[in-house]
């Protein structure tokens, strides 16, 4: 039987995400990276007590317009841009593991920081490269590894240290999740993926690091249309594929 990972409905693709799940969301901080439609679907579903692994818990709908105003001389953002902040604002996130926790400036804080101050959410702030490598290690089933990042700082607190070649390193543990929600440009029905520009970022890192990886893509192509030399994420890391609704994408 032909392998077909394409799920016709976006809501259907996330129907088995339950309360208390750990989810990775591919994001750096701009509109190109996140799987906006999967995020909207998760917001509609309303599941709670999620642990979020993402570079940021997000600007959210509170700060995206502020950011858009600040950047309007350089770029017009799509009206459909949503980030994990939507889930924070919806009260669905219990804990975030991220590198960039707050908003832009102390006067422009995101909803996550407000909730953190009110003791409503937990935070584990991780240096960005360590976050990326912990996810990669999770994908590779390497339970832990050593890095020098964070030595001599607060990031060292409570961590095991070891000296290699006269230099101190910290033990960092792998991260895995129940679901990884990512965004890519093109997919075929097997799940081979290619990305566009810097929107690859954490999306390609997270693909395969969760029990189930769901890729939201701009376009689905026939097998063979993606040159094997150019596949970025091989099909093995992808479990489900959904396609963005073209009419909504083009609206902005």
């Amino acid at each position: 039987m032909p392998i077909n990972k394409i799920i016709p409905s976006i809501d259907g693709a996330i129907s088995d995400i339950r309360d208390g799940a750990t989810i990775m969301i591919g994001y750096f901080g701009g509109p190109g990276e996140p799987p906006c439609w999967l995020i909207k679907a998760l917001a509609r579903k309303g599941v709670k007590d999620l642990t979020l692994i993402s570079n940021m818990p997000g600007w959210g709908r509170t700060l995206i317009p502020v950011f858009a105003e600040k950047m309007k001389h350089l770029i017009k953002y799509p009206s459909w841009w949503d980030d994990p902040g939507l889930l924070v604002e919806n009260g669905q996130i219990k804990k975030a593991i991220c590198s960039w926790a707050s908003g832009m400036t102390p006067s422009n804080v995101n909803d996550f920081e407000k909730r953190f101050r009110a003791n409503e959410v937990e935070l584990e702030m991780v240096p960005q490269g360590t976050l990326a490598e912990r996810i990669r290690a999770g994908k590779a089933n390497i339970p832990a590894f050593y890095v020098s990042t964070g030595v001599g700082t607060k990031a060292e607190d409570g961590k095991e240290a070891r000296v290699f070649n006269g230099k101190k390193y910290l033990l960092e543990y792998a991260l895995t999740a129940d679901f990884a929600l990512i965004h890519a440009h093109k997919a075929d029905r097997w799940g081979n993926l290619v990305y566009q520009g810097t929107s690859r970022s954490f999306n390609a890192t997270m693909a395969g690091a969760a029990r189930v990886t769901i890729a939201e893509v701009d376009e689905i192509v026939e097998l063979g249309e993606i040159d094997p030399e150019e596949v970025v994420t091989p099909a093995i890391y992808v479990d489900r594929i959904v396609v963005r609704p073209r009419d909504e994408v083009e609206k902005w």
Partner: protein
Amino acid sequence: MVDKTRLDEQTMAFRVAKEFQDGMVVNLGVGIGTQCMNYVPEGREVLFHTENGALGLGPIVSSPEEADINLSNAGGQPVHRTPGMSFFSHDESFVMIRGKHVDMVVLGAMEVSEKGDLANWVLPGRGLGNIGGSMDLAVGAKKVVTVMTHTTRDGRPKILKQCSLPLTAPQCVSLIVTDIAVIEVSEKGLILKEIAPGWTPEEVQELTEPLLIMAPDLKEIEL
């Protein structure tokens, strides 16, 4: 209190960019860092790395018509595509950083100590702060250059004997460019190499907590 002309951000970026040597891979931090891209000295070719996954980054666009939502620098500013550039995942990007493949990083700073300790990610009492890629870059880049105003808004020195803020990384900074001076971090201490036009070494010292060693070839910053 000295009230003299200080270098503006563009001029500081111009001065930092003189550190870019031919063939270097340079990562630019958010803020003044990203502006350095506009001042690569004539005749030198430099590859810019951005932690969100690109090498050979082009300049920031000048209007929304040129912008692509899938191509930005670490500060989220849209940039141009250039021939020869490459894209990669976040884990790969930090392999480049952690693996010492990046020659230089230009980072903003809140405080730098005389030993080259850097603090740039959180101000106590002003929120959670953001680590981002700063800790990895401070540890991983072969050379760390910081760029900042010499003093805080209320006139206190930012170059200190010891940082008071939470550290990004200890003993990592090798050059400090400010709006009044260029200072090298050495094993002997901080060496005052260059001063902004109109300033005296004594005036710079007055705004710097640790004792500065005067470079034998101390000169005015060339603008």
